[in-house]
């Protein structure tokens, strides 16, 4: 059998609960050592996808393989190469952090010595040494997530599913989680992450698949997705009304937006280097002084809104 370059591969994946079609034919491919972010709002089908990919849930049609193993007929083999964490996974609240780790390690079929040594290593790495002998019920939300992730790494699986790993965490805990995830990536782990935070996908993932209503509505790198929507925006602010008016006249039809009260002018730029210089040259010729300027990249938020918005309009047309 030819070894696929994709570690995780789903083709035309469909799943319904009765009449409710949760997944309407999803295709996913994750290359070895990369991270794919599955981005979408609540109810888009993210968790359902992860549960199927991690052998927890049966599906109706399509094919799903992880490391070349079929998730349905070879679930045991799949389970020995994956780690699962996030929304749908959990730790035992009445066991200590260390006990949780050692137990899960043993259940991954590690020897007792290996499980213990690895548990210690993970406790150190995840800053849980002090809390190691306390029951998990006493942990804060952030500590619990770290333990949860540590547990799924106990046997160092080459493939990790992170189902909304930072949902509900405070900003500081989220940053700590991101660092941990970046470390994992640096070691060559193949990761599938689901998130409803655009910033998270932007920060971490090599590739992003946007899903909505059980369908893939866009995919690509963060840069590619942003490029689909938008140009960079140059925002200029002026110190007085005189400069503002002169500038509006000078730049003329290139203005995308102007705000008299704030004395700001926004210009859409295609080729950032050239267009920004051109605009500034025009202003210099007219002897207009600029108080401040800023270049805004389109955010994934813009991308997301415009994509899902379009999707809904298309849906309306279909209805007619």
């Amino acid at each position, binding site marked *: 059998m030819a070894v696929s370059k994709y570690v995780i591969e789903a083709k035309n994946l469909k799943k319904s609960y009765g009449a409710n079609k949760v997944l309407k034919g999803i295709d996913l491919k994750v290359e070895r050592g990369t991270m794919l972010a599955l981005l979408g709002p609540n109810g888009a089908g993210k968790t359902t996808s992860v*549960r199927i990919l*991690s*052998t*927890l*849930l*049966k599906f109706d049609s399509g094919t799903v393989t992880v490391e070349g193993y079929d998730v349905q007929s070879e679930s*045991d083999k799949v*389970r*020995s190469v*994956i*780690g*699962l964490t996030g929304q*749908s*996974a*959990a*730790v*035992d*609240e*009445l*066991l200590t952090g260390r*006990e949780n780790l050692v*137990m*899960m390690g*043993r*259940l*991954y*079929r*590690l*020897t007792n*010595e*290996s499980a213990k*040594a*690895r548990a210690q*290593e993970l406790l150190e790495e995840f800053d849980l040494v002090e809390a190691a002998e306390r*029951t998990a019920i006493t942990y804060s939300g952030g500590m619990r997530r770290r333990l949860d992730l540590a*547990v799924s790494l106990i*046997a*160092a699986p080459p493939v990790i599913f992170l189902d909304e790993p930072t949902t509900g965490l405070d900003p500081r805990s989220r940053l700590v989680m991101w660092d941990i995830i970046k470390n994992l990536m640096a*070691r060559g782990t193949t990761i599938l992450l689901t998130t409803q935070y655009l910033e998270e996908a932007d920060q971490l993932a090599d590739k992003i698949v946007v899903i909505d209503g059980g369908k893939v509505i866009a995919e690509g790198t963060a840069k590619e997705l942003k490029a689909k929507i938008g140009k960079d925006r140059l925002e200029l602010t002026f110190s007085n009304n005189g400069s503002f008016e002169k500038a509006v006249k000078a730049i003329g039809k290139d203005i995308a937006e102007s705000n008299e009260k704030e004395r700001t002018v926004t210009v859409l730029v295609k080729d950032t280097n050239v267009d920004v210089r051109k605009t500034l040259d025009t202003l210099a010729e007219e002897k207009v002084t600029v108080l401040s300027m800023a270049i805004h990249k389109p955010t994934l938020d813009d991308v997301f809104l415009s994509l899902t918005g379009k999707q809904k309009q298309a849906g309306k047309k279909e209805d007619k």
Partner: protein
Amino acid sequence: MAVELVFEKKPKIVLQLNDSLLMIKRSSRHIIRNTDQLLGTFFQPIMFLVLFAAVFGGAISKALPTGVSYLDFLMAGIIVQTVAFGSTTTAIAVSNDLKKGIVDRFRSLPMSNIAVLNGHVVSDLFRNTISTVVMLLAGLVIGFRSSASFTDWLMIAGILLLFTFAFSWLAAIVGVIAKSVEAVQWLSFVIVFPLTFASTAFVPSEGMSPVLKAFAVNQPITQVIEAVRALILSMPIGNHGWMAVVWSLGIIVVAMPVASWLFRRKTSN
């Protein structure tokens, strides 16, 4: 990563057995860590024993064979009742596991899933043994005396353990079926309460109405109670001994595969 990971290379059946041992260890730790439940394990049986002996003792002693005190008569009944109610903890534990998502974690591991149920059922044996010993000690303090020999006590232990094991598997079914922990509570209560009260646990069957009596003397809990009682009081055990064993084995043979099947079905959706 500095630690070199070594994986077990034992036959699958050994590994699966090991899964169950790990789960038994886990559930047994729960017994000690869950302090609220632990208090119940100690005090509920003592409370029942003292209350029943004090409240019913005077009224019922006349109906008892001469020379038998109500406390000595009651002991078998109250032990079996405690064990039957105690099996509810298996149901609660199973229901909790299913609800809190840890079963998903276990299922994503290359382990035997039924080990989770084995863990709860077997640890229930430990917990019920503690309850029973506490109750016997409390009984001794307030005047319980038995003429049973050491061999009799071994037989009592055997019958009770088998019965507990059987009832815990029934409880496991309740735990899988029930939609919430609250549902487990009332469902268990509705099953266990009539079974223990419509039995000879607290009163002899002579005074019961014919229909009630017919049910009471033939149902499994009465068989277990009568067997244990006969051994405690050094009276002829009759058919009760083997009936108790047959009932328990029968329940195990049916409930174990049913619980496992339901658990598998519930968790694969």
